[in-house]
C-alpha cells in the first residue's frame, strides 16, 4: 500500500497545488515540496529491506500490491518494489526535490499549473519504476509524458512548441511499437497457456518462437532506446533540453532518460534472453557509437545546455553498452551510471539555468571570465564538469570504469572504441569550463547586464548543489552499498541467460519462470575491490 500511497500523494499534491493557485499566491511550491518530502519518507520506510538484502533473502520483491483492474484482459493493478526500483525511486524523489529547490523562484507564470505538471510527471515516473503489469507499465509510461510535454511547451524558451511536439512524437510513436509488442507477447502467451495475462512474472515464462521473440524484443528495444536516447533516435533530446525550463531539463535528464535504461534492464533483457543475446553486439555497437558521437557533438556546441544535452547522449551510451555486455560487472556499472549521471547532469543543468538567470545568456561565445563575477557558482560548476568527465573518486568514474571492464570481456573492439569517448568527455567538459569561467572577461556581458548587480548562488542553491556533490563523492569512494541493493535484481536478470559468463555465481542456472527457489545465495560482489 505504501507504493500506492506515494503515487496518490503525488497526484493529489499536483491537483492541490493547481487549485491553491487562486487563493495562495505562492502556496503551490510548498504543497509540492511537502508532498515530495512525504513521498520520500514513505520510500525510505523500505530502508530496512535495503540493508538486510545483502545477507539472505528468498524473494526478489520487497513489497507487492496486486488487485484486479481490467479482468477482461487479465490486467491487474500490480505494483512491486525491489532493489533496482528502490534506487530509482530514491533518485526520482531526490532529483524532484532538487529541481524544485533550485528553481524555487524561477517560475512566475501560472505557478500552480507548473507544480501540477511537475508532480504529475514524477507520479508517472514512480509508476513506471514500480509497475509489474505490462499494461500498467505502459499506462504510466504514457502518463508521465503529457505533463512533461506541457512543462516544455508552456514554460520553455523560444522554440518550445517545436521542441515539445518533437519530443512527444518521438517517444509516443516508439511507445506504440512497444504497445504492439506487449499485446503480442500477451496473446502469444495466451495461445500457448490459455491464460490471458499482462503480469510480468507470468510473462517471463512465455514460450516464444525465436523469430517472434526477436521481433517483440525489437519493439521494446526501440521504445527504450528512443527514451535513453541512443543513436539514431537521439535528435529530440538536444531540442527538448535546450527549450525546456531548468526544472524540466532536470527532470528530463536526471529521471526521464533513466526510465529507458530501467525498461531495458527490467523488461527487454529478462523477457527475451535468447534474442537479446543475439542482438547484443548490435546494441553494444549502438552504445559505443552513441558515446563517441555524443562526445563529438558536445564538443562542437556553443550553447551550454546543448552541450550538456549531447554529453547525456554520450553518457547514456555507456548505460546501453553496459547493459548489453550481459555480465554482472557491466550491468552494475550501468546502474551506477544511471544514478551518477542523474546527479551530475541535474546539477549541470541547474547550474546552466542559474547562469542564464543571472547573465541572460548561455551562449559560450558571449560568456567568458565569469569566475571572478560568480566565484561560488563557477567552483561548483567546475566540480560537476569534472565529475561528468569521470574523475576517479567520484561516482561517474566508478560507473564508466565498471562498464568498460565488464564489456571488455564481451567484446574487445567495441570497448576500445567506447573508451575513446572518455577522452572526448575530458575535452568537452574542460573546454566548457575554460570558455565560460576562465579567460578574459567578455565585454558583451558587461553591455547586456548594465546597471544590474549580479548575485552569486544563494544559500538555498549552494546547499542543494553541495549535497549532490557530497553524494557523488560518497558514491565514488564507497559504491558498495549501491551494488548490494541492486545485486538481486541484476542476478535475476542474468540468470535468464543460458550462456553463463565468468562472473556472478548462479548465472549458470537455466532460465525458468518461477525461480524463487533457484535464486542464488547473494554473495559479496566480486567487484568490491574496485573502489579506489
Amino acid at each position, binding site marked *: 500500500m505504501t507504493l500506492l500511497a506515494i503515487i496518490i500523494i503525488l497526484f493529489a499534491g499536483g491537483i492541490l497545488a493547481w487549485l491553491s493557485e487562486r487563493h495562495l499566491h505562492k502556496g503551490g511550491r510548498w504543497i509540492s515540496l511537502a508532498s515530495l518530502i512525504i513521498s520520500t519518507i514513505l520510500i525510505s520506510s523500505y530502508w530496512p529491506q535495503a540493508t538486510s538484502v545483502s545477507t539472505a533473502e528468498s524473494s526478489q520483491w520487497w513489497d507487492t500490491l496486486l488487485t484486479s*483492474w481490467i479482468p477482461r484482459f487479465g490486467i491487474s493493478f500490480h505494483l512491486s518494489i525491489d532493489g533496482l526500483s528502490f534506487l530509482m525511486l530514491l533518485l526520482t524523489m531526490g532529483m524532484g526535490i532538487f529541481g524544485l529547490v533550485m528553481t524555487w523562484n524561477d517560475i512566475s507564470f501560472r505557478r500552480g499549473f507548473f507544480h501540477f505538471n511537475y508532480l504529475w510527471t514524477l507520479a508517472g515516473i514512480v509508476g513506471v519504476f514500480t509497475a509489474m503489469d505490462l499494461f500498467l507499465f505502459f499506462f504510466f509510461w504514457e502518463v508521465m509524458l*503529457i505533463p512533461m510535454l506541457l512543462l516544455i*511547451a*508552456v514554460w520553455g524558451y523560444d522554440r518550445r*512548441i517545436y521542441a515539445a*511536439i518533437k519530443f512527444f*512524437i518521438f517517444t509516443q510513436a516508439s511507445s506504440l511499437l512497444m504497445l*504492439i509488442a506487449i*499485446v503480442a507477447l500477451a496473446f502469444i502467451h495466451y495461445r500457448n497457456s490459455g491464460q490471458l495475462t499482462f503480469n510480468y512474472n507470468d510473462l517471463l515464462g512465455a514460450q516464444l518462437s525465436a523469430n517472434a521473440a526477436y521481433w517483440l524484443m525489437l519493439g521494446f528495444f526501440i521504445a527504450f532506446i528512443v527514451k535513453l536516447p541512443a543513436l539514431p533516435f537521439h535528435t529530440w533530446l538536444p531540442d527538448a533540453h535546450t527549450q525546456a525550463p531548468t526544472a524540466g531539463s532536470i527532470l528530463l535528464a536526471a529521471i526521464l532518460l533513466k526510465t529507458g535504461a530501467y525498461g531495458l534492464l527490467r523488461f527487454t533483457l529478462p523477457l527475451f534472453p535468447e534474442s537479446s543475446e543475439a542482438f547484443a553486439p548490435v546494441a553494444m555497437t549502438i552504445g559505443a557509437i552513441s558515446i563517441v558521437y555524443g562526445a563529438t557533438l558536445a564538443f562542437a556546441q556553443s550553447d551550454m545546455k546543448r552541450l550538456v544535452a549531447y554529453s547525456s547522449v554520450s553518457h547514456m551510451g555507456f548505460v546501453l553498452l553496459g547493459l548489453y555486455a550481459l555480465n554482472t560487472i557491466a550491468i552494475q556499472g550501468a546502474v551506477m551510471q544511471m544514478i551518477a549521471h542523474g546527479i551530475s547532469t541535474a546539477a549541470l543543468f541547474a547550474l546552466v539555468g542559474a547562469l542564464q538567470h543571472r547573465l541572460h545568456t548561455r551562449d559560450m561565445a558571449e560568456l567568458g571570465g565569469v569566475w571572478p563575477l560568480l566565484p561560488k557558482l563557477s567552483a561548483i560548476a567546475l566540480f560537476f564538469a569534472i565529475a561528468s568527465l569521470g574523475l576517479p573518486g567520484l561516482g561517474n568514474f566508478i560507473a564508466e570504469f565498471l562498464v568498460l571492464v565488464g564489456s571488455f570481456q564481451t567484446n574487445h573492439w567495441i570497448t576500445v572504441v567506447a573508451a575513446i569517448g572518455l577522452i572526448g568527455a575530458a575535452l568537452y567538459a574542460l573546454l566548457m569550463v575554460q570558455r565560460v569561467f576562465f579567460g578574459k572577461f567578455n565585454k558583451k556581458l558587461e553591455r547586456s547586464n548594465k546597471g544590474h548587480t549580479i548575485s552569486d548562488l544563494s544559500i538555498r542553491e549552494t546547499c542543494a548543489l553541495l549535497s549532490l556533490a557530497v553524494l557523488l563523492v560518497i558514491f565514488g569512494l564507497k559504491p558498495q552499498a549501491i551494488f548490494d541493493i541492486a545485486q538481486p535484481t541484476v542476478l535475476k536478470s542474468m540468470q535468464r541467460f543460458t550462456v553463463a559468463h565468468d562472473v556472478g555465481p548462479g548465472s549458470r542456472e537455466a532460465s525458468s519462470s518461477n525461480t524463487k527457489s533457484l535464486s542464488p545465495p547473494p554473495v559479496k560482489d566480486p567487484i568490491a575491490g574496485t573502489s579506489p
Partner: protein
Amino acid sequence: MSAHELFSILPLLIISAGIVLLLLQVSFWRNHIGSFITTLVTLVFAILSCFWVAASLSGNAGSIQVTSLINIDYNALFFSLLLLLTAMVVSIMGYNYLEPRCYPKRNPDNYPEEFYILVLLAILGALTLVCSSHFATFFLGIELISLALYPLLGFTVTGNLSSKKEQLDSLESAFKYLILSALSTALGLFGIALIYAASGALDFDSIAIRMPDLSQTSALFATGTTLLIISIAFKLSLVPFHIWTPDVFQGAPTPVTALIATVGKTAAIAFLLRFFNTLNLYQSPVLIDLLTITAIASMLIGNLLALMQNNVKRLLAYSSIGHIGYLIVAFIIGNSAFGTEAVIYYLVAYVITTLGSFAIVGLIADSVETDQLSRDKKVISPPEAKDDPYQREFYRGLLWRSPWLAICLALMLLSLAGIPLTIGFIGKFYIFSAGVEGQMWALLAGVVIGSALGLFYYLRLLLTMVQRDISENTTNFGALQITTSGQLLIATLAAALVLFGIFPQILINWINTI
C-alpha cells in the same frame, strides 16, 4: 404480428409517436423550449423502453424476429441506446445553437422547432437501420437518415438569421451531401438488385441459406456486395469515398455536424456488423481485401490531410476519417466475439469523444455569437482568424481564459490521440489487441503511422490552448460564457471519458451483458 413482436419494437414506436406528437404540438403552439422538452421526454422514454425490451429478451433466445423485416437482439438494443443518448446530446447542443441565433426578442416570427422533428426522424432512420434484417428496412433506414439530414445541414439558411457566410457554407454542405448521397444510394440500390438477382432473396436469413451455392464464384453476388459496401463506405466517409466530409462537416451547423459524425456512422457500422455476421462475409477474401485497402488509405490520408487544417471543424472531419479507418481494423478480424466487442468499444469511445469535441467547439461559437449580439455588433465581413471561433488561432491561450472548458477540450483531444486516462486509449488498446489477434501487421503499421501523424495535429491544437502569449486583441473576449446546460453536457461527457478510461471494465461488462 403478435403483441410480443409489437412490444419488441417499442423504441421505434415511441420515437414515431414522438414525431407525430411534436408535429401536432408545433402546429398549435410554437415554442422553442416546449418542443425541446418534448424531444427530450420522447428520447428518455425510448431509452427506458430499450431496457424494458432487453429485459424481456433474456426470456427468449436472445433475439426476436419481427416479420421478416426487423430483428431485435442485444447488439441492436445496445446500438439503439447509444444512438438515443447521442440524440439527447445533439438536441441539447441544438438548443444552445438555435437559442442565440434566432433572436427571439427581435424576430418573433422566427421558429426553429423543425430542428427537433428532423433530429428525431434521423434517429428513427438510424434505429431502423440498426434493427434491419431485410434490404427493404435497410433502404428505408438509410434514406430516412439522409432525407432528414439534407434540411438539417442547410438549417442555417431557413431557421434563423445567421451571417451570410454561415448561410452559404451551410447551403453548400447541404447540396454536396444531397448529390453525393443520392449517388451512393443509387450504387447501393444497384448492388441490392444484383444480390437479389444472384440469390433470389432480399432478407438476410434467406440469402445466408443460399450462400453455400453462391459461394464466391458468383460474380453477380460479389459485385452486388461490393457496390453495397461502397455505398456504406460513403456514409462512413472511408477513403476514397470521403471527398464530401470536410466541406459538409465545416459548413453544417455544429450540432448537425456532431449528428452526422456520430449517428450516421454508428448506424452504418451496426448494420455492417449484422450484415457480415449473418452472411458470414468475413470468409470472402475480395471484400476483406477491399476493406483492408480502404482502412489503410483512410488512416493515412485522413490523418495526413488533417495536418494542414487550421479550421477546427475541418480538422475533426479529417480526423474522423482516420478514426473510422482504425475501427475497420477491428472490424476485419472477423466473426469472433472479441472482434465485435472491440468494434463496439471503439465506437463508444469515438462517439463520446466526437460528441464532446464538437459540443465544445459549438458551444464556444455559440457563446461568441451571444456575446456579439449582446454588444449589438454583428460582424458582417468575414472575421479574422483569431476572432473566428472555428479557427485554431481563436483557441490561443484558452486554458488561461476558461480553464475548465479548456481542460475538457484537452481531454477530448487526448482521447482522440489515444493517450491513457481517457477512453480513447482503451479503444486504441482494443484495436491493437484485435490487430495482433488477427495477425494483421500491415494494418497495425497503418494504425501506428496514422496515430503518430494524428498526435501532431491534436498536440498542435492542445499546445495552442496553453500558449502563454495572448495577443491584445483576443483578450477582450475574456472568459467564455457557456450556458448551464452546455456546461453540464460537457462535464458529463468528460466524466464519462475519464471514467471509462480508468475503469474500462464497467463498460466492457455493459457491452457483454446487454
